[in-house]
C-alpha cells in the first residue's frame, strides 16, 4: 500500500503526461530503494557536467539530464539520491550501490560485454588541448602537424583509442590518472597536447591550464565510432528499458537538446581537424 501511495505521490508531483505515468509504472520495484532513484556520479564531479561538485542542485549538464530522466521515469526531484563512485567501483562485480551511474562513460562494444549502457544522452567531439607556446611553435590543426606532437591523455578514457587509431603520433603517448595530472604534465612541458572530450577541453583551456588553447576538434560526424556518453548500469539491469524510454522521449521532444544548449558551450569557434 505504501508503495502505491509513494508512486501516486511521485506521479502527482511530476506533473507530466499520461506517457510519463507509464514510465513511472515501469520503474516500480526495479530500483535499489523502493520509490527512490539512486544516481552515481564521479568524485569529484567536474564542470561543466556538474556545477560546483553539487549534483543535488541540478546544475550542470549531467545533473540536469539526470533530473530530467528521473522526472520522465516518475521520480520527483526529492526522490533522487546521489552517491559517488570511481570508474573501478562502477564496473566491479557484485551488487551496485546505484541504479545508474553517470560520469561521461563512453559506450563501447567491449565495455558492453561486462556492463549495460543506456541509449546515448550526449555525443561528444574530441578536442586537442594545448598551450599558446605550442601554437607559437607552429602546430596546426592538421593530422600531419598533430603526429609530430608529444601526446598525453587520461588513461581511463576512450581518448586513447582515438589517439592511436586516428592521430598515430610518432612517439608513444604518456598516460595519466586524471585531468589534474595531465595538466601538470602540460605545464611542465612534458607533453605538447592532450586529447579530451570537447566540453572538458573547453573548460580546461579557459580556466585551468595556464596559457591553455584548443588546437582543434574531431567532430563526431567525422568519426566512425563517435564518442557517445551513456548511463552505466549493472549488466542485465531491469531498469534499462525504463531509462532508455525516458532518454528517447527527452531526445524526441527536444528537451535534451535544450539542456545541452543551456549548459554546454557553443564550440563553433574551435577549428575542425582535417
Amino acid at each position: 500500500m505504501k508503495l502505491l501511495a509513494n508512486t501516486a505521490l511521485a506521479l502527482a508531483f511530476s506533473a507530466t503526461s499520461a506517457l510519463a505515468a507509464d514510465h513511472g509504472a515501469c520503474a516500480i520495484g526495479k530500483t535499489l530503494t523502493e520509490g527512490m532513484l539512486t544516481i552515481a556520479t564521479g568524485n569529484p564531479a567536474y564542470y561543466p557536467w556538474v556545477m560546483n561538485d553539487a549534483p543535488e542542485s541540478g546544475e550542470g549538464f549531467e545533473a540536469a539530464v539526470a533530473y530530467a530522466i528521473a522526472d520522465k521515469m516518475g521520480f520527483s526531484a526529492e526522490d533522487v539520491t546521489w552517491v559517488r563512485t570511481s570508474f573501478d567501483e562502477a564496473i566491479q562485480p557484485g551488487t551496485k550501490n546505484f541504479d545508474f551511474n553517470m560520469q561521461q562513460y563512453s559506450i563501447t562494444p567491449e565495455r558492453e560485454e561486462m556492463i549495460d549502457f543506456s541509449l546515448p544522452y550526449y555525443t561528444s567531439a574530441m578536442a586537442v588541448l594545448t598551450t599558446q607556446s605550442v601554437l607559437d611553435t607552429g602546430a596546426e590543426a592538421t593530422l600531419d602537424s598533430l603526429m609530430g606532437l608529444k601526446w598525453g591523455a587520461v588513461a581511463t578514457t576512450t581518448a586513447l583509442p582515438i589517439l592511436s587509431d586516428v592521430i598515430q603520433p610518432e612517439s608513444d603517448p604518456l598516460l595519466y590518472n586524471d585531468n589534474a595530472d595531465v595538466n601538470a604534465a602540460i605545464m611542465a612541458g612534458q607533453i605538447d597536447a592532450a586529447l579530451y572530450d570537447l566540453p572538458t577541453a573547453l573548460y580546461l583551456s579557459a580556466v585551468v591550464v595556464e596559457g591553455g588553447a584548443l588546437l582543434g576538434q574531431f567532430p563526431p560526424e567525422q568519426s566512425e565510432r563517435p564518442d557517445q556518453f551513456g548511463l552505466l548500469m549493472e549488466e542485465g539491469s531491469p531498469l534499462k528499458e525504463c531509462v532508455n524510454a525516458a532518454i528517447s522521449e527527452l531526445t524526441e521532444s527536444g528537451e535534451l537538446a535544450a539542456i545541452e544548449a543551456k549548459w554546454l558551450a557553443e564550440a563553433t569557434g574551435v577549428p575542425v581537424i582535417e
Partner: protein
Amino acid sequence: MVDTSSQNSTKKPSAEAPTRREVYEAGIRRRANRIALISTVSVALAIVVLVPLAPGWDAVQRAFFNGRVFAATFPGLLDAFLLNVMIFAWSAPLIAVTGLAIALCRDARAPALFPLRLLGTAYTDVFRGLPVVLVIYIIGFGVPGLGLPRPWNSPYIWGTLALVLVYSAYVAEVIRSGIDSIHQSQRSAAASLGLSDRDAMRFVVLPKAIRNVVPANMNLFIALQKDVALLSFIGPVEIFRQAGVYKSLYANFTPYVGAALIFLALTIPATRYADYLMNKQNRART
C-alpha cells in the same frame, strides 16, 4: 645416564642398522608429512570447491578471470613489462652506488667530516620518511616545471631520480647496519697492519659488511621491481598503466591479474634466491 645414551646414539654410524630412536623419529616425520599433505590437499580442495559455490562467483570470474580478455591483453602487458625491466635495470646500479655513498657519509668519523655525517643522516631521515609516490610526483612534475627544455624534462629521468632518492636511503641504512656489524677490533687490527682508515674501510670492513647484507638488499630490490610501476603516475606506460588502460577499455579487471602473474614470475624466483642466500649465510654462521 641420559647424556651417555644420546652420545652413544650419535657416535654410532647411521649407515648401519638404524637405532630404535632413529626408527621412531623417522616414523614421527612420516606422520607429520602425511598430516601436512592431507591438510594442504583439503584446504586446496575446499577453496577450489567452495569458492565457486559463492553466489557471485560467475560475476567475479567474468570480471577477474576472463579468458577472452586475458588472451587479448596479455601480449600487450608483456610488451609494457619491458619498460619496467628497463627502468629497473638502470635504477638498480644507481641506487646501489648512491646508497653506498650515503652509508659511507654516515660512517665518516673524522671531526672535519661532521657536515657529511649530518647530510647522510638528514638524507636517510627525509627520504625514508616520505611515501615513494609523493617523491615521484614532486620531482617528476615539479623539477621539469621549473622550465627545463626537452629532453631534460623527461618523466623517465626525474622519475628515476625519485626512485633512486628513496631507495638509496633504504639501501644506505642496510649497508650501514652491515658496517656496524663489523667489530671495532677488525678496524684496530687493520690499523695495526698499517692500513689507513680509508684502506681499512675499503679492504677490510666493506667486503665483510656488504656480504652480510646481501639478503637484506635483495629484499629491497624485489620491492623496487614492484615500485617501478609507480612511475606510471607521471606518464610512462609501463605494465601497471597498460593494465589500467585495458581495464578501462574492456571494463574488466582481468588485465590486472595478467600483470600480477607477470610480476610474480619475476619476484618469486628472486624471493626464493634471497631466501637461499639468507639460509646459506645462517648456516655459515652456525
